[in-house]
């Protein structure tokens, strides 16, 4: 009886401890792809730290159709689009509280309130706000004095017939503004720091195949041609800036087939010339989900509508189709995928923006009217520290971290490759090869194998020499012996016949 009660007490303690374990349980919430492109469930790399609605924050009304999000140090700027205001949150001692609310500004300008602000950017001196329905981007000081506005370009290159609706933008170090404007597909609108229009950057090269061209221009009727997709560059949906000053742009205007065969890049990293310099060395295409169905509740490919780049070169993209977040490292390997559509914490209904604060991820949901804060779990932290150690050049420490990642998730491909690389550096070629082989990494395996082969040949040079000599000499000797015997026999025969 006593034993039983002891057992019960033990079980009670274990149940009390289990939430920590439960957070890492296999829920199907987080996954990754294996080498063959099959979905493999993984432990959760991120867990919900907080969900912030107007109630938690003590705001007077719900966030309404919130579109834009920006993080500067410990301040979070939310564009409360439907309420025409900016809500600034402060993160301090593990709490999120409202720091201030920006509804209007002062200065020599006709309209000094906002109308549906959809994006915000803050640098060390100024605040930039995309005041969409007022057709402008305003530049303010920290104490809300109006400085400058960026309006519809008065330029021949800019189609004057469309309404100028700046939706998303970033500001570079020289305070030049790069803006994604609705219904403009020539690329990103670039302004000088004095507000002057300076052309477009990053327009995608238009590609179409010969068959489509012939069909559309010579065979199809006018009605058919109108129904077909135009051969125009894609429109961007969102833009973000990374630490090195490169722009990450995302686009959701794609042909699903082109996407599925890797001909369309929904995430691009643009340099100052507007060329895509994103590295895509991973097993999977950098397109979010790599396979999808067209039946069921949530159909079609991932629509990546926002992206945020962390300090260590990893970046996270937000998928509106299934409410998922996809994390990639700087080589284009899928680090993790998690999230979903729904009403629970960590699920979304209409996510609109993603930002990061350190390694925490913040996701704004316009329909749930809330901000969800994700923080890395122990497992997620191990992945990040392994990447960090590798970037610092401490390969052995990195391998140690990867080994701990494997404790959580034995299917994690990058961990095997990371350990293999460290072993390769320690000249343990054979072990490195087995790690690379486990995850079909032929490039690294090839390198390790070449070194291993070289070492093997050097170690066994005597043996090889002996074998080669045997192969060359033994048949010669045997042939010689046979010949001698045959001659002796012939001589004997000859002498017989003579006698």
């Amino acid at each position, binding site marked *: 009886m006593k034993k039983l009660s002891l057992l019960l007490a033990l079980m009670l303690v274990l149940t009390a401890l289990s939430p920590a374990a439960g957070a890492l349980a296999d829920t199907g919430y987080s996954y990754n792809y294996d080498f063959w492109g099959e979905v493999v469930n993984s432990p959760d790399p991120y867990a919900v730290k907080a969900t912030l609605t107007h109630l938690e924050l003590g705001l007077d009304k719900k966030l309404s159709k919130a579109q834009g999000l920006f993080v500067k140090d410990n301040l979070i700027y939310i564009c409360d689009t439907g309420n025409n205001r900016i809500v600034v949150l402060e993160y301090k001692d593990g709490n999120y509280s409202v720091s201030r609310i920006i509804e209007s500004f002062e200065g020599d300008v006709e309209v000094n309130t906002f109308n549906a602000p959809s994006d915000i950017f803050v640098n060390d001196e100024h605040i930039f706000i995309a005041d969409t329905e007022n057709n402008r981007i305003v530049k303010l000081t920290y104490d809300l004095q109006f400085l400058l506005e960026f309006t519809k370009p008065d330029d021949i290159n800019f189609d004057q017939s469309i309404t100028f609706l700046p939706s998303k933008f970033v500001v570079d170090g020289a305070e030049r503004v790069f803006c994604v404007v609705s219904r403009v597909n020539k690329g990103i609108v670039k302004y000088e720091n004095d507000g002057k229009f300076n052309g477009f950057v990053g327009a995608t090269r238009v590609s179409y195949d010969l068959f489509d061209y012939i069909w559309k221009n010579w065979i199809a009727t006018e009605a058919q041609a109108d129904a077909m997709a135009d051969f125009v560059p894609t429109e961007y949906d969102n833009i973000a800036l990374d630490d090195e000053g490169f722009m990450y742009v995302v686009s959701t205007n794609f042909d699903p087939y082109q996407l599925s065969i890797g001909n369309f890049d929904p995430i691009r990293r643009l340099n100052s010339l507007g060329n895509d310099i994103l590295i895509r060395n991973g097993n999977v295409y950098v397109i979010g989900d790599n396979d999808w169905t067209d039946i069921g509740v949530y159909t079609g490919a991932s629509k990546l509508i926002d992206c945020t780049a962390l300090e260590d070169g990893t970046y996270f993209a937000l998928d509106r189709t299934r409410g998922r977040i996809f994390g990639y490292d700087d080589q284009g390997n899928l680090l993790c995928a998690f999230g979903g559509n729904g009403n629970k914490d960590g699920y979304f209904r209409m996510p609109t923006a993603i930002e990061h604060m350190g390694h925490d991820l913040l996701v704004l949901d316009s329909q749930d009217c809330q901000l969800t804060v994700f923080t890395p779990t122990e497992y997620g932290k191990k992945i990040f520290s392994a990447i960090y150690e590798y970037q610092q050049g401490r390969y052995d420490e990195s391998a140690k971290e990867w080994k701990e990642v494997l404790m959580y998730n034995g299917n994690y491909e990058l961990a095997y490759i990371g350990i293999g690389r460290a072993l390769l550096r320690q000249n343990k070629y054979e072990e490195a090869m087995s790690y690379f082989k486990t995850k079909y990494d032929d490039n690294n*395996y*090839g390198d390790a*194998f070449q070194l291993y082969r070289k070492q093997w040949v050097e170690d066994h040079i005597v043996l090889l020499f002996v074998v080669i000599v045997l192969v060359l000499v033994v048949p010669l000797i045997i042939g010689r012996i046979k010949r001698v015997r045959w001659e002796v026999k012939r001589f004997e025969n000859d002498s017989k016949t003579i006698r």
Partner: protein
Amino acid sequence: MKTTARRFVDFFTNRAAYDRFFKSLRYALYVIVHPFDGFWDLTHEKRGSLAAANFILILSLLTCVFRIEFTTFQFIKVNYERVNFFMEMMGILLPFIIFVVTNWALTTLFDGKGTLKDVWIASAYAMTPYPLIVIPNTILSNFLAEEEDTFNYFFHDFSIVWSALLFISAIMMVHAYSIGKTMLCIVFTILGMAIVIFLLLLFFSLISDSVAYFYSLYREIIFRIY
């Protein structure tokens, strides 16, 4: 009266039959380097044998599996959950059978000299370079690194091109055709193969439909009875 066991032993210890088999098999090595002479003598002078032809064919099928299984993973990555070695072998055997039958059916109409057996033997002999090159190539691949994959792919493709050329000369010699007529014959054989495959698919889908019909009829009756 010999017993069955005795006959069995005799069959497998027939020294003359083995000699014939090895001789005709060794003739394959002559054929692949002297295709015109070789294929002419193969059927017209009875230098080849059905046993050797089947041996080469089976060896080719096994080579196909051997290559997938034992080439280093750097060149061929096999998802063992998805690969069926039997299907891989059928991928060679079925086209081979359909080719031979279609070719024979066509050439009997266009005064080809070869019988079905001749076409079968010659076609099988034409496959000789495939196992001959691919087996050593597969073994050697395990001593190569990823950068050196060109060697592996080159030799594999080389064996297939060689085989293809041998197929053409086999058809030409077996039926005593001119080169132009051979080309025409091959084009029509390929078209014929497409038709045969279409008919087979049609046949199987109709059969499976009618089986499903009778099966549902049977189930209906069983339901009514009980």
